[in-house]
């Protein structure tokens, strides 16, 4: 059809001078910059899903309370021993882990919170606007379905990792101050404590891990959940899980293989070469090496995953164009 016939419009009979802000009524209003539309669309997600930062803040607060209690009850002789003899390598390793563990724990707890929040967000992102009929309001504004879906995809992939990172760093800061205050009250010199906890490298490792594994490698997961939330009329969670379970079970029954399961697992793990692994095989939160970064950038899992992500988003756009209130 003639969507391209968007040339100038003739004056309507007796136009009122200045009735249109853009000059003559013949002019069509110019498009706003796409970045601006995306910005406001992401912001509106944040308004709607305030719980996405409130929940991590509550988790952080609970963790801090637990940490303060732990610090107050930490066996003093053990700590003093360590701080005095910290130079001895084997003690240092044990001691540093003792001191570092709560900080690592905070990172892991908030990272886990992020994943749960991201999954719940994605399942409701394109569903709640249909069930509360507000999709008709959003569609009455000059924001395309593509822009909306992109904004909703940026939320778990960009905004939530950032929020998680910032809240984790703040939590670490408060932990350091809380720990210092408690130890000071118990007569321990805190300077040594500060020297033992390598926070900046921890933050680098955390950010790397968040971006590579949980944002980019997990992107197809978020894309799938967004697609389901655009499609399902109800019980989006079941629609998200059941097809995956069906594929896993059918593959096992028919071929007696578990290729899909391994594929899924390696995607969830972020590709073995891309993140630092301990020799034992467990993922660690150590500072990545350049080799890690290189391996990450050339890993097929990343790029295939992102292609699948894009395909799922295209499907979500296709659906949102056609979907109305439910």
């Amino acid at each position, binding site marked *: *059809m*003639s*969507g391209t*016939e*968007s*040339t100038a*419009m*003739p004056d*309507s*009979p*007796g*136009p*009122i001078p200045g*009735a*249109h*802000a*853009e000059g003559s*009524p013949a002019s*069509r*209003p*110019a*498009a*706003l910059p796409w970045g*601006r*539309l995306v*910005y*406001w*669309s992401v*912001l*509106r997600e944040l*308004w*709607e899903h305030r719980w996405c930062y409130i929940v991590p803040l509550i988790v952080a607060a609970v963790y801090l309370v637990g940490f303060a209690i732990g610090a107050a009850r930490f066996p003093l002789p053990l700590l003093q021993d360590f701080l005095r003899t910290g130079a001895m390598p084997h003690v240092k390793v044990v001691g540093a882990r003792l001191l570092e563990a709560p900080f690592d724990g905070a990172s892991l707890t908030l990272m886990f919170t992020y994943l749960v929040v991201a999954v719940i967000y994605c399942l409701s992102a394109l569903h709640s*606007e249909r069930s*509360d*009929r*507000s*999709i*008709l*309001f959003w*569609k*009455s*504004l*000059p*924001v*395309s*379905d593509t*822009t909306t879906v992109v904004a909703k995809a940026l939320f778990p992939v960009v905004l939530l990792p950032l929020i998680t990172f910032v809240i984790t760093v703040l939590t670490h800061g408060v932990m350091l101050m809380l720990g210092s205050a408690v130890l000071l009250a118990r007569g321990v010199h805190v300077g040594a404590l500060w020297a033992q906890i390598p926070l900046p490298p921890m933050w680098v490792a955390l950010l790397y891990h968040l971006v590579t594994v949980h944002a980019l490698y997990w992107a197809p997961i978020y894309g799938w959940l967004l697609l389901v939330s655009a499609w399902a009329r109800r019980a989006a969670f079941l629609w998200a899980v059941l097809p995956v379970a069906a594929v896993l079970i059918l593959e096992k029954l028919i071929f007696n293989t578990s290729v899909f399961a391994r594929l899924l697992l390696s995607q969830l793990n972020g590709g073995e070469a891309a993140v630092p692994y301990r020799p034992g095989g467990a993922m660690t939160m150590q500072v990545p090496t350049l080799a890690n970064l290189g391996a990450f950038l050339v890993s097929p899992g990343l790029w295939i995953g992102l292609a699948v992500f894009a395909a799922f988003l295209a499907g979500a756009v296709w659906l949102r*164009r*056609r979907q*109305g*209130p439910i």
Partner: protein
Amino acid sequence: MAVIEARALRKAYGKTVALDGIDLKIEPGRILGLIGPNGAGKSTALSSILGLIPYEGKLEVLGLDPWRSRDQLMREVSFIADVAVLPRWLRVSQALDYVAGVHPRFDRAKAERLLARTAIRRGSRIRELSKGMVTQLHLALIMAIDARLLVLDEPTLGLDILYRKQFYDALLTDYFDRDRTILVTTHQVEEIQNVLTDFMFIHHGRIALSCSMEEFETRYAEVTVPAEHLAAARQLRPIHERQVFGRSTLLFDGAERGQLEQFGNVRTPGIADVFVAVLGNATDDGQAGSSRS
């Protein structure tokens, strides 16, 4: 150029034909009422015009294909579905911020002025507002957009009579001008009769009658006829006859006013009465098609 131009516009959901080849052309500066029973195709027509659903046939709104360029079209078209579409979690201030953020023709100062006349507070969430206030807010947002076409789909559904009247008064006095076009559907035909410049009856996905209000007023006449003149009046072939308190009211299409005046006081009928007469006759004649719902 016409604001809306459709040729052979058709939409089927499976075997159900919602729009059965509609032709229409709406010029700027009109207020068109789309009138029809539930399931007649009104909402489907509006959804097509707004680019919310794909369709068959040719449709241009402000020279654009709505299905392919909805976001571009929405820079010049405003739309109120009904009172329940503003998200309940949204704050009034956020609604203003967001629309100002994404709409190139939104005049925030105007919206603020319109809101200042109401009791709506900026910090309130939509869920804290009454139905009437939500409509006032939506109307303030829409009226602050310098659009060329405003589409209203049952905009006053569920509102009490006071707000319904205010709604149309505000539209007419503060918004409508010769450059704008308004397209409205409603069940409460009688309350918009004196607002409309044109109306269109839709029935079974087809246009049963399309007429301007000037034409309507010259063409249709209604007269309550005393029993002794009834036979004579019926000679003039009324299209409809109804009994009110034992007296017959006859509805005429195209009858000479002078002739009718001998039977009693000649009035312009309500659109709803003509609607009933036209659609009733169409159904009696079997013209309105088969068993589509």
